[in-house]
């Protein structure tokens, strides 16, 4: 028995919507199996993962605050991925955004003005974008693989943050703890409702979704992103510059990641610490794919992935399930998303045995696209 793929003449719109849903369903099923294997009641475990966090107002706010960085980063990454630019280093750009944005509350902590927050956010975006410009420069100037360089820079950013909070930026009155001084009132993104966890960063995320939806849906730049992402040669023929697009993709996603970093530090952590992210920059990659690189899809997917973080916490509290299971869930989800995306371009059928007609394909007709793709 084996699977056989037949290319559809055009991509299936129905499957484009159905595929993420199938992927989520498969993740839940396999999740239940996983819990059963670990010795937990699957129904109870799934309930505490996916339902319990949605039952109380405060946890809905937590959901929004965790979804904020995920959506911000993922929506930027979607532009890069659509243009076939592989920025894998969002986690590092997030960290750099947090560091740049924190310059103001660390060095000018006495400055009390309404301008502090906007300045911090802008600095965060600049930090993320500058850091993202390194792999973009190396890619355009030397042709260096951006996947590896952007990823290596994640480690470097982590070490830089570690050095800052243990060294020059350490809180002088903080009993040698590795952290900066607490941010002043003026440097904290205020909660949107009362004293809740949801801060104004959530608005940035929604605005980012709207801006990118508009960019991709109706502008020439968005058209350029799609053309260069799908067929580079055709993009050059249209007069679009690949190099500028690499910069565009990296700078945009870097700026959004940087904003996510400073917004989370300012709104949630409220100081710099060695660890300011539970892997948002990587989880956002899953969000981008689960949302099918579509801004609205990403908004929904961001909430979904934020739910896994919250569900992990709640399952740990109520059932004693390790919070490490969250990342297993997330990894599984991405695999299922990628696997289900096959349905969009191909019809999949199960063939029994070594069916007849399993012949080598036509060498003549298929050689041409293969050469052209080089």
């Amino acid at each position, binding site marked *: 028995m084996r699977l056989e793929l037949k290319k559809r003449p055009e991509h299936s719109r129905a499957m484009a919507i159905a595929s993420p849903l199938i992927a989520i369903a498969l993740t839940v099923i396999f999740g239940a199996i996983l819990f059963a294997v670990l010795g937990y009641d699957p129904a109870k475990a799934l309930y505490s993962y996916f339902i319990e966090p949605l039952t109380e107002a405060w946890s809905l706010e937590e959901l929004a605050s965790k979804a904020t960085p995920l959506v911000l980063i993922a929506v930027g990454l979607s532009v890069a991925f659509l243009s076939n630019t592989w920025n894998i280093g969002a986690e590092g750009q997030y960290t750099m955004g947090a560091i740049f944005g924190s310059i103001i509350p660390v060095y000018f902590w006495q400055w009390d003005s309404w301008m502090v927050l906007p300045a911090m956010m802008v600095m965060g975006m600049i930090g993320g974008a500058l850091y993202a410009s390194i792999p973009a420069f190396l890619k355009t100037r030397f042709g260096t693989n951006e996947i590896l360089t952007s990823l290596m820079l994640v480690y470097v950013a982590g070490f830089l943050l570690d050095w800052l909070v243990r060294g020059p930026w350490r809180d002088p009155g903080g009993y040698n703890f590795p952290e900066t001084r607490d941010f002043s009132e003026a440097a904290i993104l205020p909660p949107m409702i009362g004293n809740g966890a949801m801060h104004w960063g959530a608005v940035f995320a929604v605005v980012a979704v709207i801006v990118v939806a508009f960019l991709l849906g109706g502008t020439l730049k968005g058209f350029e992103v799609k*053309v260069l992402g799908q067929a580079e040669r*055709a993009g050059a*023929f249209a007069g679009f510059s690949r190099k500028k697009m690499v910069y565009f993709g990296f700078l945009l996603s870097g700026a959004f990641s940087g904003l996510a970093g400073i917004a989370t530090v300012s709104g949630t952590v409220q100081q710099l610490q060695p660890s300011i992210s539970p892997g948002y920059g990587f989880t956002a990659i899953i969000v981008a794919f689960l949302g099918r690189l579509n801004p609205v899809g990403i908004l929904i997917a961001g909430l979904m992935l934020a739910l896994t973080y919250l569900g992990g916490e709640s399952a740990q509290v109520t059932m004693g399930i390790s919070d490490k299971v969250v990342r297993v869930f997330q990894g599984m989800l991405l695999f299922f998303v990628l696997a289900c995306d096959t349905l969009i371009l191909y019809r999949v059928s199960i063939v029994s045995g070594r069916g007849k007609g399993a*012949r080598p394909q*036509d060498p003549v007709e298929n050689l041409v696209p293969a050469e052209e793709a080089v």
Partner: protein
Amino acid sequence: MSDAGPTRTPSGAGDDAGAELLVARAITKRFGDLLANDHIDFAIRAGEIHALLGENGAGKSTLVKILYGALEPNEGQILWDGRPVTIASPAAARALGIGMVFQHFSLFEALTVAENIALALNDAPAMKDLSERIETVSRDYGLPLNPASRVADLSVGQRQRIEIVRCLLQQPRLIIMDEPTSVLTPQESDGLFKTLERLALEGCAILYISHRLEEVKRLCRAATILRHGKVVGSCDPRKETAGSLASMMVGADVKQVKADGTPATGPVRLALNDLTMPAESPFAVPPKHVGLAVRGGEVVAIAGIAGNGQSELFDAISGETIARQADAVEIDGKPSGRMGITQRRRAGAAFVPEERLGHGAVPGLALADNILLTRHSTGDGLVNLTMLARGAARAMEQRIKGAFDVRMSRDNPEARSLSGGNLQKFVMGRELDRSPGVLVVNQPTWGVDAGAAALIRQSLIDLARAGSAVLVISQDLDEIFEIADRIAVISRGQLSPAEPASDMTRERIGLLMGGAGETNGDGSGDAVSAAGEKIDAA
């Protein structure tokens, strides 16, 4: 090639053809609703050079793939030496003694000649022995090859030799050749014919697929003609005229497109002045000192063998690669060498590249979006203040669809769902719709059916007669003689002066293709020396 094997008079070949080697009975192959082969009967004898004629899409490739085991027929029977056989795979075909030389070589560029051949043999000997055998066989048949060369470094002609030698090493009794001369100069083709005639004399059957009627008349003793998947006739091509063969292939007299031959006197609308480009990659053949002027009202064609720098020249003219000097490319007298492709379009030029999918069109985008690809900034109202005007693009798509008879399964489909001919009509229509002052086309009818090809060629001539300058890059000499007022030849990035089509002959073009027109001998040019040898020999 001095030590080529014994020479006998080729005219004797095939007349004493032996028993029927391969017989195909009622071969039928369906692809969905399409009947690619419809009860085909066919036979080839030992020692016979047998032509398989037909248009693109007539079912030649399907039949050949069935004979070579690459496709399975839905119905029908194959007899080999009078016994029914099932050819389940190319390996099974090779085991029977059937070899094939593909039109587009299935070679591995990163591997050596010997490694490539070893891969294709069912039971290859040790590398060292194999290399020796390759040298022996290639020398014997006048196909010199170095077994240790990397394929990436070889010319197209040399690559074809690998395919042929690889076939010969298996001592085949039937060799199938798919359009073998489409990549060769006329002189190289002569060399190939000598090899084939010698093989036939040794008793090998050769199934020869071509649409070049003159060479079929010269080489083949029998022919089977296919049309729409059916056998519509068989004949002795030596007793036919090219015209009678053509009408059998097409089924009716083809509407002849003909340039009227009056010299154009309009202004120069496209000029290339000493256009020289750097190599973009190790395998590129960039233009070298190319000079050309195309006047309004004329069609100028650039002939050449594939891989001699056609696409690099196209990219340099279109602005996908930018020249060092502004005056290297002039569009309507305006120095454009430093401009990008969008500015050159604004200057009134339009371009149609060779590759339709992936270069001229984005496979996964709808046709209306593909219109935007070349016309987003040409003042057609498709983009207003960076916002896309999708409605206008849809209207334009409808207009082009009507004017150029583009057939599609549904409204505004993705480009990849169109057939080759329909997509080419769309891509041509997209540019012609602008009535450009300068049109540059690379391979306008490559892989396009005869009806669409005639439509495209006629529209090129019409555009020129309306006062535009049309430059056509083509590897199809028939097409070039059909539409061109003047002809130039590209060889390893150099362009011969354009001469009136009436003064050009196939022989002269062949010599120029072989490098006779090149001015400087940088490097040990294989093409030049090969052509030189041929001239000396002739």
